[in-house]
């Protein structure tokens, strides 16, 4: 049962550890600025967490070949599935 629970928890970018990679699965279009999507934050794209500032905020990522930093509040809205 525990195992089932684990797989059901939704991962977001915030759950990545520095160096880990995820694939963006989903986010609410209303809440994610167009600019971020245009910088490559789109479903299906790969995102790698490079570094986090203290308190996990902001987060420094590389997505679709771009290097950028976003705040935690935004990162929490972007769902991903982790890649080993």
């Amino acid at each position, binding site marked *: 049962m525990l195992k089932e629970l684990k797989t059901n928890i939704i991962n977001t970018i915030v759950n990545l550890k520095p160096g880990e990679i995820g694939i963006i699965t989903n986010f609410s*279009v209303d809440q994610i600025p167009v*600019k971020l999507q245009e910088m490559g934050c789109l479903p299906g794209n790969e995102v790698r967490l490079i*570094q986090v500032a203290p308190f996990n*905020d902001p987060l420094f990522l590389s997505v679709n070949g771009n*290097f950028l*930093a*976003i705040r935690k509040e935004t990162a929490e809205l972007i769902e991903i599935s982790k890649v080993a």
Partner: protein
Amino acid sequence: MSKTINVALIGNPNTGKTSIFNLLTGLKQKVGNYPGITVEKKEGFCKLPNGDKAHVIDLPGTYSLNASSADEQLVVELLLNPQSQDYPELAVVVTDVENLKRNLLLFTQIKDLNVPTVLVINMADQIERRGISLDIDLLEKNLNTKVVLVSSRKNVGIEQLKETVANYKQLNTTGCVDLRKIDPGYFAKLEDAYRGEDLYQLWLVVSQGEPLLKINKNLLPVNEYSERNTSEIKRLQQKETIERYLFINKILKKAYNVDITKAKDWRGVLDRILTHKFWGYIVFFMIMLLMFQAIYNWSSIPMDFIDQSFSRFSEWTKNTLPAGALTDLLSEGVIPGVGGIVIFVPQIAFLFLFISILEESGYMSRIVFLMDRVMRRFGLSGKSVVPLISGTACAIPAVMASRNIENWKERLITILVTPFTTCSARLPVYLIIIALVIPDQTVLGFNVQGLTLMGLYVLGFGMAVFAAFILNKVIKNRSRTFFVVEMPGYKLPLLKNVLYTVIEKTKSFVLVAGKIILAISIVLWFLASNGYSDEFHHAEEIVRSQSQSGQLSESDIETAIASYQLRHSYIGTVGRAIEPAIRPLGYDWKIGIALISSFAAREVFVGTLATIYSVGNDEEATIKQRMSEDVNQRTGRKLFNFPTGISLLLFYAFALQCMSTIAIVKKETNGWKWPLIQLGFMSGFAYIVAMLAYQLLA
């Protein structure tokens, strides 16, 4: 007959637009490795190979035509307004070869506006080290455009670019992505509602609403059209973005390849340290420390030299030129006044050198990353760090640099608090007062004067942050926060760019300040050497009759006469009229005059005192000596004593005494409201704090 065509340089931030602009036009606009160096439109001309002339417009970088900050807005407004004088006949889209994929997104959008478009792929010098291979012909064919490979650092490809610009008429203007494919139903309806309008432009106006409406009056009812469907619009925008990337990926798959094994890069290693939770802050702190160290210690040698040269020059003038009013004006007004500014050249040069290196290396974005969280507590953004740091040079470019902060409230607060940071114009004032009232002693290995100066810088930042905290509570937040900052790759600062910035900025500081000071010192000198009252004209008789003969030496009497005359000159009369208002702060009428004249610009303070203290004085003492010996007539104590000095330092730390700052804040906030509030608040606050300090200490 030759003609002139408008050519706009458009592209993502930090792709080298300004570097190319400088090469084309021979101008020297500022370049830097931070997204958002250019925040306003810059223009220049370029002669084309066919004899025509290009009117080249350098624009702020933009990620897309969906503008999200004030500098990006400018680009969209230009492209959607065919009536504009600058409406481009040709768009040159500048891209960075390392970020081609993302850069092409904007390219497809611009191409869809059906403007003739050239694709410039810049930074060609990086192709090899990054292991990139590129098929230009294939790109040209698939993108329906002309591609020019450029390296502005190596000055490669510029001639070819000029050639292409000259032949812009041959460019194909078909678009890249057909919106109708995204949602046939929606776009058919939209097209129907506004027949005759270009669909993509229509869509841009619909999706961005209000800000773009003023451009095209025909689309006025669009507002209602868009308000009903915000969510739907966002969904369509996402689909559009995906569609564009599909188009781009399909092309790049064949035409662009990166062989990672061949790529050489140190950004990974550097970022692990420079953005580290702990080490990142240590490095940042060390860099700041080094910067202040350089400004205060390294520059003292050239400063002493300049100081001596000017006082020698002044003496020489006095001894060599025939005695008279003109010589007095030169040796007592102009030379000390100008010298008072030139002496700060070494410090200002160091300041600009550091800021320029921070910007050119790519480190600035890392500071933004490190500081965002802290700054947010005070209603600022990590991006506010850039204005606050560059504000130590001058508040005017700093206020403008706030343009790339997306959130209006964060931007407004940044604009309002930036003038608290210790700008280079405050330095002269601080240094002279510190020299007068703070003992030149060493405590625990630190020089007390140096510590005081450092303390004033900390005070400036502290006050900026504190004011932000208050403003954050007071100003109602209208816009939603979001924050995206690009982290550019590290670059070795180009010596040419850095030196150029340093020389140019320092020169303009001296010229601008020099002009004001020259003018003011002439006026002041005149006002101080003339008067209308009986007391002024009969100063000698009055003073002699008052002092009983024999008690004073002849030279003392002469000094007394000169000072009596100064008190009753035009300037003395004005100064004494305002004295009651500034007495609680510990100032006399001379400081009052300096205060008034420095309302246009702070650095005038020193020049003013230099002039006042030179008039009618023949002794060879330096201005500083005269100031330190001056006695306040009312209290009988030294005028520049400790309480008065501290009160002056605090006044100059907080008061907004800079016309240019007021003007730029008015421009950036579109009205008089904020600059006036800022002026009132800062000056009122300065007055109160200075008064409290004096009353407590005296």
